């Protein structure tokens, strides 16, 4: 009797260990597959585009013949300009929203409605956001196809991402830090500004830079808002911000790298195709650099926070 129980236990242990081995194998396989997909995609795009990417003038010349010839200098600039404007608008709003939700909002209907609204906003298809942006900003506000319309449209789906990232970063600050401040007679605002946000900063920076990668590669929301063409010539050295050729004019149309790919992909000419792949390689490199930068900056900030 006792012996059979012992045997049963042995069999059970053996089975558990075998299952563990199988699970380890399957999980390793899955991760390997994911890595294979990423690596092969990156290598394929680079192999197709790297030649164009390093072609003299590709990064420094304006495009010609409706994008089928020349470089992508303006598209590159427009992408960064859109990104910076988007962050300039969405970061303060998201920070405020996240601080409210984490530190101030009482449990209740308003808070849960706000959270639901933010989640809904993050799952809206970007093309729908683009259409909305077109109707409201380009048509109703009369901003036409402009960098500002584009940046505001991008803001709409960047806000939920940022709010979530900042919310998470603030929630990850140990409660003991909050307690320490409040127990010293500091207000919630002082606590948030001087203690919580600095501690959360590495995670916030990482999240912001990662979200920047998504904004940078966005096409659908920009098709109807910032338009599908940059001015033929941009002047970076004019202070006449109302001029349609002034690079810094937020009311001029603009074309991001992603939109550029979309626009000229349909062009049949072989030269247009090389530009498409070169642009794709450039876009991908930029996004990869964002990710690397996010890690490096986040880690450096975290190190500064904890040691010194």
């Amino acid at each position, binding site marked *: 009797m006792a012996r059979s129980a012992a045997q049963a236990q042995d069999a059970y242990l053996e089975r558990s260990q075998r299952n563990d081995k199988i699970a380890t194998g399957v999980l390793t396989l899955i991760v390997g597959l994911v890595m294979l997909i990423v690596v092969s995609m990156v290598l394929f795009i680079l192999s197709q585009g790297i030649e164009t990417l390093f072609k003299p003038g590709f990064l420094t010349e304006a495009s010609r013949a409706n994008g089928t010839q020349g470089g992508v200098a303006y598209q590159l600039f427009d992408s960064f300009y859109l990104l910076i404007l988007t962050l300039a608008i969405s970061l303060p709003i998201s920070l405020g929203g996240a601080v409210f939700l984490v530190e101030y909002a009482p449990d209740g209907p308003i808070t849960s409605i706000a959270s639901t609204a933010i989640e809904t906003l993050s799952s809206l298809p970007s093309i729908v956001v683009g259409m909305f942006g077109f109707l409201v900003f380009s048509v109703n506000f009369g901003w036409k196809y402009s960098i500002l319309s584009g940046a505001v449209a991008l803001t709409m789906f960047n806000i939920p991402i940022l709010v979530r990232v900042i919310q998470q970063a603030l929630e990850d600050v140990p409660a003991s830090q909050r307690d*320490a401040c409040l127990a*010293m*007679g500091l207000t919630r605002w002082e606590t948030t500004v001087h203690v919580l946000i600095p501690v959360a900063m590495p995670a916030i920076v990482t999240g912001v830079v990662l979200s920047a990668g998504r904004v940078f590669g966005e096409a659908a929301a920009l098709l109807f808002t910032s338009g599908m063409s940059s001015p033929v010539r941009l002047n970076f050295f004019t202070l006449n911000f109302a001029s349609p050729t002034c690079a810094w004019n937020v009311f001029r149309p603009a074309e991001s790298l992603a939109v550029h790919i979309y626009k000229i992909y349909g062009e049949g000419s072989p030269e247009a195709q090389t530009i498409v792949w070169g642009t794709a390689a450039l876009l991908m490199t930029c996004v990869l650099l964002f990710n690397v930068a996010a890690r490096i900056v986040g880690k450096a900030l975290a190190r500064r926070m904890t*040691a010194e």
Partner: protein
Amino acid sequence: MSVETSAVETDSTSADFMASVSSSEKQNRVSGFAISDEVVLETKDVNVYYGNHHALHDTSLAFHKDEITALIGPSGCGKSTFLRSLNLMNREIRGCRVDGEIEYRGHNINTPSENLYELRKSIGMVFQQPNPFHMSIYDNITFAPRRHGVRGKDVLDQMVEESLRGAALWDEVKDKLDKSAFALSGGQQQRLCIARTLAVHPDVILFDEPCSALDPISTLAIEDLMRNVVKDRAIVIVTHNMEQASRVSNRTAFFYMGDMVEYGETEQIFQRPNDARLNDYLTGMFS
């Protein structure tokens, strides 16, 4: 003076005792006598609720100047909940409600109009985990006072030195005040947290299991420190460690299942407990 009243109350009426007390100006821990009857903080029928959960029932206790009061009891007995009511930290917890009167120097602070920020300067708190700010040692101490409007490098320098000396940390850190507080050991961090609390000159300091994350040597250092800083203020300490309660406190309150079961001088509580549950707890029947 308050010294006289308490000495009269005790069964020792000898003049030597009074003289020794007043000369040392410290409470006589060995006999557990209180030398002060000045109540700094007092609760009257305090009840605490978390939502529908009634976590603490009708607790009335008084905390005296120059005295350390220990709150003991098994986990979940309500002692920390009670402690966190004393500086209204429970107000920061969603769904928590505190009923009853909490009188600080004769004035009920458990009112909606009470200025929490002013109050918490007077009633400081030290937590279970050392929780220094992610700042330099110097800034850890000056941060809150500067937010409260203290200015001037000389003033702040002096405050840092006084607070760190008060927390018996000055000699260890005086050459590295600009270093991060996280470079310190756990025990040093906890003493820094006490120094930070001392810098705002509180009347009452609440300790919420201040040594449970520390090694025995750091624990003894903190206990010494408590006895040194209790002068002119009241200290309340929640502890799981009964030896600690008996070593450090003048009076002890035993909590069990949300009730304050027994309260008395520490010696009596540990030597001659009245309540059967307290006796069981002390003899290790449960913990």
